[in-house]
């Protein structure tokens, strides 16, 4: 049984200050890294014989418009079946330079997950074999999950946000 502590120490030893912000929300080891190190970190976790985190569960994006210089976060969930160990890795990237290397070289499943993330947030995965929209129409010229596109018409006056939810 692999503990969060063990993996965190292993990563710190290998990557030093390139991995940071260690947390354990609801028991799931969460850490951040830089976009230069994300692929090496995933490769390290995948190939290390003590960890064998061979399964990529999910890739998704989040936008924090108020975090200047770190507006977008790409989140990777990984899973080791051998040790029943899950890990979440985050990479913050700026809106001005919205690039991150692709994980398709490590996991075939990353292909559509990254396309979906691109489709909704406009995050560009460098080296992706076929980075185009997947769920939305190809003629769409904006990225709908970004916070600047509110769900409802902002000029409506018959619904008061202060009273009815967000």
């Amino acid at each position, binding site marked *: 049984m692999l503990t969060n502590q063990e993996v965190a120490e292993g990563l710190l030893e290998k990557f030093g200050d390139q991995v940071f912000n260690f947390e354990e*929300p*609801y028991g799931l080891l969460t850490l951040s890294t830089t976009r230069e190190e994300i692929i090496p970190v995933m490769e390290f976790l995948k190939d290390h014989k003590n960890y064998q985190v061979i*399964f990529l569960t999910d890739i998704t994006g*989040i936008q924090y418009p108020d975090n200047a210089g770190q507006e977008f976060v790409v989140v990777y*969930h990984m899973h080791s079946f051998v040790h029943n160990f899950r890990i*979440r890795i985050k990479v913050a990237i700026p809106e001005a330079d919205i690039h991150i290397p692709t994980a398709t070289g490590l996991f075939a499943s990353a292909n559509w997950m990254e396309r979906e993330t691109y489709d*909704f947030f406009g995050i560009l995965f460098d080296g992706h074999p076929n980075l185009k929209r997947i769920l939305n129409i190809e003629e769409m010229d904006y990225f709908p999950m970004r916070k600047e596109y509110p769900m409802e018409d902002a000029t409506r006056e018959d619904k008061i946000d202060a009273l009815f*939810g967000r």
Partner: protein
Amino acid sequence: MADIELLPHNVPSHSELPELVEELTTLNLGPTHPATHGIFQNILKMDGEKIVSGEQTIGYIHRAFEKIAERRPFYQITTLTDRMNYCSSPINNLGWHMTVEKLLGVEVPKRAQYIRVLMMELARITDHIICNSILGVDTGAFTGFLYVMQKREEVYEIYEEVCGARLTTNMGRLGGMERDLSSTAIRKIKEFIKSFPPVLRELEKLLNRNRIFMDRTINVGPISAERALSYGFTGPNLRAAGVDYDVRVMNPYSSYEDFEFDVPIGQNGDTYDRYMVRNEEMWQSLRIVEQAINNLPEGPYYADAPEYYLPPKDEVYRNMEALIYHFKIVMGEIDAPAGEVYHAVEGGNGELGFYLISDGGRAPYRLHFRRPSFIYYQAYPEMCKGSSLSDAILTMSSLNVIAGELDA
């Protein structure tokens, strides 16, 4: 003698023939072809009857659930989840409730957990009977499909008894179930436990050792365990390839650790193995249903969390606190703590994950669904490459791609 004009003798010699071009046919499979089991398109390049390559186009029923969820209070998101995998909507509903309960730190009583397990396993049975019997239809055996549909109908009647709806169930509430199991529901479940095995056995007799069915499915659309893992397969499709990963066993939720059941696995990852794994899973689900109904604990069916769980209606009329809570819950004014949760349940098709980020507001800051169909469907061109069109239909059918889950 009249001149007889002979036919011109100008048949070109072999060297003069235009060169034969090996041209591939492009075939649009879908988006509305009945054999696609939903609205999605495959653009196949065919060399005669063989598939050379394929490309999928999806998104025809994309409804932007993740965006809609960012404006909705938590309890209103339940209705979005059951429109994903509509063949087993209770699993989606209850998985979502468990995610929010994890965020809020609500402990659900044992009785509610057992009722949830019961409903989720019944949902798994309906999911798998559809998949397996439709596989029969695609190989040419229509009888079994209509026959087991009757049993699905009985499960839907149980749903009706438990939550009032049939297909889009909106089952359960944050903190438990909306009502206790009625005596009718218990009677119907017990009847189902008795009446389902003979039907399933007959479906097995129809297909399992059927020469035609075996010839059509064995070694059709195989995928190795390694490729399946790389492609993010989960659920029955991964287990058919020989990897014994089941969320219910590995990360038990809702008291699954109390139940005894086996996880069937296959060997070759082909269509026949996927069929057999689903078939055996129905027996295991039935075992769990039986255990849950026989050992149903006494006690409340909802958690003691008045700020999240709607109070009984007569309390609302007589009690001030209950009235306030009722109003706040219905208007979506409960404030959730800030935090991020990933919760996974074993859905009909595999690991159904909910990644929820709350910033302390009344709606999620970000909600992402890990939909198993979406992730494993990308392997489809690789799996049907080189096979004939009719085999490719079977491969798709046995993958159990649900369009609602694919597009979310």
